């Protein structure tokens, strides 16, 4: 790993360069009153003056709708057309926060453990992550409670941290980061004297995730779930803004003669997620579904994949129409 510096204006030059190479850049942009990740068309739209985007950058690796294959039928014969992965664009996630970058590991654990999900793996292969450390945080942030930090480099290929007004520390972390540097070495300055720590947001540690993990192990039948999930409306907002949540549905679209098979986002919070065709539903009420979300992130995923299913970005708390604040829920649970 090497450390260099880069000025704000040069960052833009780097991005221009990437755009000119037909790379797709996902970056935070202002949309109405919100800041959200979207493919960048004009550098004017770029913003870094935000705490957190509404949606995570997950969609760049795991799009809300993804074609898996096409089919066509003639008489009794069926022809399948496999998804062509050779033309997937090289893409850059720019302006991801360290928590977002940290989410790539658990996300890829889901998609690549045992059976490799080719589409995901191929996208990941073609993705470069340029993160920007957090200078500020809000009450919904809790990255430090789940082992991530505002200047964490995990998952990033290049991590930028603002030191002065327009001077950034650039940590080149991986080969892909190195490739970025090589793309335009003239944009980068020498390593700055100052370390980044003083410039990072202070995110207070609210809970100990290991204690949470241990307590959840015996808490399946805890009365806590029923009590705290009363307000939960059973929508998928938390899962859809979450950088880690990756449950999906597979649906065919078209007629029996011709069409495509699609994968689309789904959520364990939705009532029909686990419904059997027989009418039986193993998770028939919302508190069970709320428990599943907590359990899956903090208990099952660590046990299954050795990855925590949460990076403390706080998006679920911000998006929840019923203000089911995750930190509070966790804190309450730990005291329950």
């Amino acid at each position, binding site marked *: 790993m090497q450390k260099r510096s880069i000025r704000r204006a040069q960052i833009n030059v780097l991005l221009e360069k990437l755009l000119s190479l037909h790379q797709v850049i996902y970056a935070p942009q202002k949309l109405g009153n919100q800041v959200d990740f979207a493919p960048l068309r004009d550098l004017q739209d770029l913003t870094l003056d935000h705490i957190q985007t509404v949606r995570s950058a997950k969609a760049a690796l795991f799009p809300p709708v993804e074609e898996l294959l096409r089919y066509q039928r003639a008489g009794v014969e069926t022809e399948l057309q496999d998804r062509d992965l050779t033309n997937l664009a090289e893409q850059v996630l720019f302006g991801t926060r360290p928590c977002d970058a940290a989410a790539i590991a658990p996300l890829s654990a889901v998609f690549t453990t045992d059976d490799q999900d080719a589409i995901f793996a191929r996208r990941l292969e073609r993705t470069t992550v340029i993160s920007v450390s957090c200078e500020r945080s809000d009450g919904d942030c809790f990255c430090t409670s789940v082992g991530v930090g505002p200047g964490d480099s995990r998952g990033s290929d290049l991590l930028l941290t603002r030191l002065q007004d327009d001077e950034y520390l650039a940590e080149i972390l991986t080969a892909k980061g190195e490739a970025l540097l090589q793309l335009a070495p003239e944009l980068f300055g020498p390593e700055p004297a100052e370390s980044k720590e003083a410039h990072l947001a202070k995110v207070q540690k609210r809970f100990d995730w290991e204690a949470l993990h241990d307590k959840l192990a015996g808490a399946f039948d805890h009365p806590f779930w029923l009590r705290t999930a*009363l307000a939960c409306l059973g929508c998928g907002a938390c899962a859809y803004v979450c950088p880690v949540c990756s449950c999906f549905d597979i649906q065919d679209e078209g007629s029996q003669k011709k069409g495509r098979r699609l994968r689309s986002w789904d959520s364990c919070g939705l009532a029909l997620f686990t419904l059997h065709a027989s009418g039986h539903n193993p998770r028939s009420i919302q508190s069970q579904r709320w428990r599943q979300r907590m359990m899956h992130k903090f208990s099952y995923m660590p046990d299954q994949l050795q990855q925590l299913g949460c990076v403390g970005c706080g998006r679920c708390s911000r998006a929840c129409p019923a203000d089911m604040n995750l930190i509070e829920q966790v804190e309450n649970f730990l005291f329950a």
Partner: protein
Amino acid sequence: MEALQKSAREALENHKAKVIIGYSEGSGGRMRPIFVQSPAEAEKLTWNDRCTQNLAVYIAKPEVQKLGKPALVAPLPVLRAVLQLASENQIKEGDLLVLALSDGRVTELSQFSEMEEFVAKTPTHLASKDQEAIERLEKMTPQERWQYWQSELTRCFKCYACRAACPMCYCSRCTVECNQPQWIPVPAHPLGNWEWHLMRAMHLAGRCVSCGACGDACPLDIPIHLLTMKVEADIHREFGSQAGMKVQSEHALSSFKVQDKENFII
């Protein structure tokens, strides 16, 4: 505020209700629905302009039903939702108590007739920001409007928070979840999003109590409440009926009247 807390406390103490469904201060300046089950907790209840959730949405939830008879803290849209739900046979008289809020006063209502009277004398106009937004949309050319909704609805990722937050979306199997046949595409692509939101607007036509909870629930700030509010306003203008005003109401779009023109039937 004290009046609300007092009414809630009394309702619990006098066993008029087992749980008060109300608002409390939540996190990050947001408001939060709470379920007050003991008189002591009543002090958490509060009410302000940030209370945008429609609490009537909780009446049908099995876990909430298990708590016993609820009392709903009800600003006007919640009260209207209660009446509309009653008119659609989803609530029976006596199943719930309403602590109606207006001008800082709290009125305890248990009979539908009382609720109807209360609603009748409360103005039902839209919030000015919604009214202005609708007017802005009305002034657009069809092409501009198409563009507007195109860009708004394309963003939707179908988390269904709008549906979950809507007290009138109480179907146990929503149309999008009916798959034999699958009329509405499941994925959140532009076509699927359009079909979903237009279908929802149609399904709420004549039933929307214009609370705006759907739009507020949207994590992506898509103003979908404008669709249902506009349809509701049009129905009010054309048919004179308004959702959530009366229990025995004639639903403008689902009532066959013998004097209706019916040349189309035979």
